[in-house]
C-alpha cells in the first residue's frame, strides 16, 4: 500500500469515528449543561463557564417515577418479546433450513413482506383490536406486535446460520453411540447457539427502538416504553423542551445499547450482514 493510500485510510477511519460518536458526545455534553443555561440559550458544544450542572440532571431524571417506570417497561417488554420471538423463530428457522415441507416459500415470503410493512398502517386496526381484546395499554399489547415484527429478522438471520451448520455431524455422533437427544444437545446446540444469540440481540434492538407502537398502543405509564416516554417528557410544545434533562434521560436509555454493542460487536455485525445479504 502506498503512503498516500495509508493516509487516506487513516483520515477515513477518523471520519467514521467522528461521524458515529459526534452526536453521542454532543448529547452527553448537553446532559451536563444546567437547565438555567439551556433556557437562557447556551449555543456551543460544551457547557460554557458557569453553565455546567454536574450530575444534577441525572439525579433529577432518576428521581422521576415516570421515567423509571418507562425504563422498567422497556426492559421487561423488550426482554420478553425477544425471548419468545427467538424461541418461535428458532423453530421456524430450523424447519426452513433443515426440512422439506409445503409452505416453506410462504414463510419466507411472509417474513419478507412483514419486514417491509409500513408499521403505521397497522396502528389503527391494532388500536381498535387491542381495545376489544382488552390488552390496550398493557405489556402483552406491545409484546405481541414486537414479536411479530422481530420474527422476520430473527427467522432470516437464524436460517442463514442454520444453513451453515454441518447437520451430518449429528448423525455421525449417533453412529458413535450417542442417543439422538445427546447428539442434538452436544453437537448441534453449541453450533447453533451463537446464531440464536445474535438473533436475540437484533430482536432486542428492534423492540428497544420501537416508537410507533409505543406511542399508539399505550396511554398511561402502565406499559409506555422509554422512547415514547422521552417524547412525552414535557408537554406538547416540541420547540421548548428541557433539553438538558431530556439529554440525561436519553443517555440513560442508551446505556443498555452501548453495553450490548461493546460486548457483542462481532456477533452483531455477522448477524446483520448474514441476515440481510446472504439471507
Amino acid at each position, binding site marked *: 500500500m502506498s503512503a498516500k493510500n495509508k493516509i487516506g485510510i487513516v483520515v*477515513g*477511519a477518523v471520519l*467514521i469515528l467522528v*461521524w*458515529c*460518536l459526534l*452526536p*453521542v458526545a454532543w*448529547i452527553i455534553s*448537553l446532559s451536563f449543561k444546567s437547565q438555567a443555561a*439551556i433556557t437562557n440559550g447556551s*449555543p*456551543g458544544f460544551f457547557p460554557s463557564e458557569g453553565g455546567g450542572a454536574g450530575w444534577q440532571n441525572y439525579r433529577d431524571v432518576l428521581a422521576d417515577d415516570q421515567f423509571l417506570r418507562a425504563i422498567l417497561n422497556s426492559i421487561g417488554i423488550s426482554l420478553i418479546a425477544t425471548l419468545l420471538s427467538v424461541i418461535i*423463530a428458532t*423453530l*421456524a428457522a430450523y*424447519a426452513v433450513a433443515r*426440512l422439506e*415441507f*409445503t409452505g416453506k416459500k410462504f*414463510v419466507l415470503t*411472509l417474513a419478507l413482506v*412483514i419486514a*417491509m*410493512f*409500513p*408499521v*403505521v*398502517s*397497522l*396502528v*389503527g*386496526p391494532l388500536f381498535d*383490536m387491542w381495545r376489544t381484546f382488552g390488552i390496550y395499554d398493557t405489556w402483552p399489547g406491545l409484546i*405481541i406486535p414486537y*414479536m*411479530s415484527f422481530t*420474527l*422476520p429478522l430473527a427467522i432470516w438471520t437464524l436460517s*442463514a446460520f442454520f444453513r*451453515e451448520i*454441518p447437520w451430518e455431524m449429528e448423525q455421525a455422533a449417533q453412529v458413535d453411540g450417542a442417543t439422538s437427544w445427546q447428539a442434538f444437545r452436544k453437537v448441534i446446540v453449541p453450533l447453533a447457539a451463537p446464531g440464536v444469540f445474535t438473533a436475540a440481540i437484533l430482536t432486542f*434492538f428492534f423492540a428497544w*427502538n420501537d*416508537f*410507533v407502537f409505543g*406511542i399508539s398502543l399505550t396511554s398511561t405509564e402502565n406499559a409506555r416504553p422509554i*422512547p415514547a416516554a*422521552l417524547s412525552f417528557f414535557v408537554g406538547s410544545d*416540541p420547540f421548548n423542551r428541557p433539553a438538558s434533562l431530556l439529554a440525561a434521560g*436519553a443517555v440513560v436509555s442508551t446505556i443498555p*445499547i452501548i453495553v450490548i*454493542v*461493546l460486548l457483542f*460487536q462481532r456477533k452483531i455485525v455477522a448477524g*446483520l*450482514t448474514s441476515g*440481510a445479504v*446472504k*439471507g
Partner: protein
Amino acid sequence: MSTTVAPDDKREVRKANKVAASDRSKAENNLGMKLVAPAIFLMLLVTAFPMLRALYLSLFDYSLTSPEEREFLGLANYWTALTDPLFWETTLNTVFIMVVTVAFELVIGFAFAMVMHRVIFARGIIRTSILIPYGIITVVSGFAWQFAFSNNNGFVNAWLPFVEDGFNWFGQYGSAMAAIMVSEIWKTTPFMSLLLLAGLAQVSEDMLEAAKVDGATWWQRLWKVILPNMRSAIMVAVLFRALDAYRIFDNIYVMTAGAQGTESISFLTYRQVIEQFQLGIGSALSVLLFISVLIIAFLIVKIFRVDLASARQEG
C-alpha cells in the same frame, strides 16, 4: 462451497426416493409445518388480520369519538384522500426524503465500507462505533440533532461558517427538511455500510489484482470490477433502506411534529387515526400507504432486477 452442495445433494436423493420414502417425507412435511405454525400465526395476527380489518373500516365514515354514527361510504374515503392536496404533499415529502437519504447513505456508506475493508488498525473500535448509531433509539438521535440544529442551544450554527448565528433551522420548510434528513442519514448510514462491507468482502482480490496488472486505474477498477460484483448486495441494501425510509415517522415526530409542511405520509396516517380518532379515513390512508410501499418495492425490484431469491440461496 461444500456446505451448500451437501444439502442440495441430499435434496436430490430425497426427491429420487420420494415414492419409496413417502412415509418419511410425510412425517418431515408434518414436522416442518408444525414448527413454522406459531411464527406464521403470530405474523398473520399482527399484519394480515389488521390489514384486512383496515380494508373493511376504510369503507366507513367511522370516528371513535362517535362510534354509533358509523356509516357505510363505499370508496368515498379513498376519493377524499386522493383528492386532498395534503395527501399528495405528504407523499411527495416522503418520496423526497426517501430518494435524498438513500442516495447520501449509498455514497457515504460505500466510502465507509471501503475504509473498513482496508483498515488494519483499530478494526474493533471502528466496528463497535459504527454499531452505535444503529443501536441508538431513533427518538434519541432525533432529539440530539434537533438540539444540535437549535438556534438557542445548538452547535451547528456556530460550526457552519456560512450560516448566521441566529438562523432558525426549523423556521422554514427547506432547512427543517434538511435537519430531519441529517438525523435520518446519520442513524442509518452505518447499517448501509455494513451491508456494503459484506458485499465488498465477496469481490475477489484476484480479479482486482489482475485488473491492476492490466493497468486499470483506481476509478476503472471501482466501476468495472468492484461495483458490478457487488450488484446484488447494493440492490438489497437500497431496497431495504428505501422501504425503511418511506416509513419515516420518529424523526419527524420528534424534530418538527410536522410543522412547516414537513409531514410524511406515515405521520399523516398516525394523526388521523390516533390523534383524531378518524378510523375510517385513517384506515383508507393505511391502505394507501401499504399500496405505495408495494409499488415502491415492485419498482425497485423491476428497475434494478433484484433477485431476492437468488440473493438468499447464495448463503
